[in-house]
């Protein structure tokens, strides 16, 4: 075990992983975090706590992660390169590990111009691939980026993002390979709507042997409405929403769009369960945490596996279980 996180245990055991997401509030509202967390408890193996998502200032990811631990969830602490330099990042990795955070997702971050502080100076001291290699070095070599020794290495299961739909398409899988080489243990993909392209991308990853080196969780976001589908298609960078998704929602009777959106998400999850090279699903139910129990039930991913606390931490099996 590299980190001993629940997510790592689920994936190593060969179970189909199911992770969720929780967006921290735009304020110091602890109760809001707790409320969202309660919907997710027992439904997911780990919950991504977003880091100033869409470049809007929110309660910090590590702080909301600690609240989620308090609520009995396992956080996946998201960290973007936009807001921190290498000193702050390494300090936060140590602090997170000290507080029992065991998963960390390394991201570039949306550009600051999209958020509520467009005049900010983006840090971008290192990129997301370099953040992966930095944390691996801290964990596996007990060394800071500088090469200096760490007293008690952090225990972190290292995550990375992949967008199968950004361009240049034929080279996306090579970037995935670079993240794996840098030290990613698991991958969570961008929200997937174009299943055809996703199948192609996973096949390329399989052919390159990448899925034997890393656990890939496919990103699924249920559409809440036709408006949301159109917005995702036209306004979200790197998002690929095919016309058939829009048309299917268009064909729904008034008041049934959300239901249809959930149905479509569950169909995707069914396919991912069977897809070679896919180790789980990352469900991003954006501001829809209360729907997660219903979706998890419908998707047939309950109950979630549990592990005894005394699972040995020192097991070093590097290959994903099939």
């Amino acid at each position, binding site marked *: 075990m590299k980190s001993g996180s629940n997510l790592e245990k689920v994936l190593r055991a060969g179970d189909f992983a199911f992770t969720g997401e929780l967006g921290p509030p735009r304020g110091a509202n602890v109760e809001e975090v707790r409320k969202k967390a309660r919907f997710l408890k027992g439904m997911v193996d780990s919950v991504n706590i977003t880091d100033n998502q869409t470049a809007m200032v929110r309660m910090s990811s590590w702080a909301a992660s600690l609240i989620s631990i308090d609520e009995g969830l396992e956080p996946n602490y998201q960290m973007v390169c936009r807001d921190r330099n290498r000193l702050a990042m390494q300090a936060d990795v140590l602090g997170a590990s000290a507080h029992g955070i065991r998963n960390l997702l390394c991201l570039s971050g949306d550009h600051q111009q999209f958020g509520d502080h467009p005049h900010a100076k983006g840090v971008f001291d290192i990129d997301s691939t370099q953040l992966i290699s930095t944390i691996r070095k801290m964990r596996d070599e007990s060394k800071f980026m500088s090469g200096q020794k760490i007293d008690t290495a952090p225990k972190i299961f290292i995550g990375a993002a*992949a967008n199968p739909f950004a*361009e240049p398409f034929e080279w996306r899988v090579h*970037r995935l390979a670079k993240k794996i080489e840098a030290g990613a243990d698991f991958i969570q993909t961008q929200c997937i709507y174009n299943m055809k392209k996703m199948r192609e991308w996973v096949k390329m990853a399989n052919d390159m042997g990448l899925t034997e080196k890393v656990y890939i969780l496919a990103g699924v976001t249920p559409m809440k409405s036709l408006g949301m589908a159109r917005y995702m298609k036209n306004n979200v960078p790197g998002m690929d929403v095919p016309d058939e998704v829009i048309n299917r929602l268009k064909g729904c009777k008034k008041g049934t769009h959300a239901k249809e959106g959930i149905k479509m998400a569950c169909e995707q999850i069914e396919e991912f369960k069977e897809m070679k090279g896919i180790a789980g699903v990352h469900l991003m139910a954006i501001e829809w945490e209360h729907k997660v129990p219903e979706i998890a039930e419908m998707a047939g991913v309950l109950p979630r596996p549990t592990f005894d606390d005394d699972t040995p931490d020192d097991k070093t099996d590097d290959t994903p279980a099939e």
Partner: protein
Amino acid sequence: MIVGEQKPLEEIWEMIKDHKKVLVFGCNTCVAVCQQGGNKEAEILASMLRMKAVQEGVDIEITDAGIERQCEHEFFEKAESRIGDADAVLSTACGIGVQFMAEKYPKPIYPGLNTTFLGAVEEFGVYAERCQACGTCILGQTGGICPIARCAKRVLNGPCGGSTNGKCEISKDVDCAWQLIVDRLRLLGRMDDYEALTPIKDWSTDRAGGPRKLVREDLIDE
């Protein structure tokens, strides 16, 4: 070259309006190329400011002059008397020229331009950033296209997830630097360079290391 953009007239007016004799002083090298701060532009700006002074009913003598470069001592010789006569100077050089003059003369030196970036003339009237002077050039590994200057997130192992149709997530008018790099490496048959992880950057040669200076001892000794 260094690209600059003239400040709004109102902002310039606010800086100079309380002086009696103002010299608008052009710099005829870099910024002149982008038609912003050259000697010709200084002349035009001076006449606009004279009109403004008339409109505002302010008595102020505004003249213009210029030299080839405001960042080297030797060019100032022929303009010493003009500078000496003025209460204040509005320099239309880049920020380097403004500061160089401020170090030389004990009088207010105001910036007439916003210094924008180090760029190239893509076509007449279009200037675009190409270099951030980071102090450690990696163009040899990136097919001659700089991700530091041209990627909005300075991603060194790109492209990020926001690249769409060859464009950057920040604007449909901005090329994705990593799309350009990949296209170029393919053209050159150098995709192996793409596969290699780009190491973490040493920013100490960039502004992060404090103000930079280059001393050529061999030249000083002569």
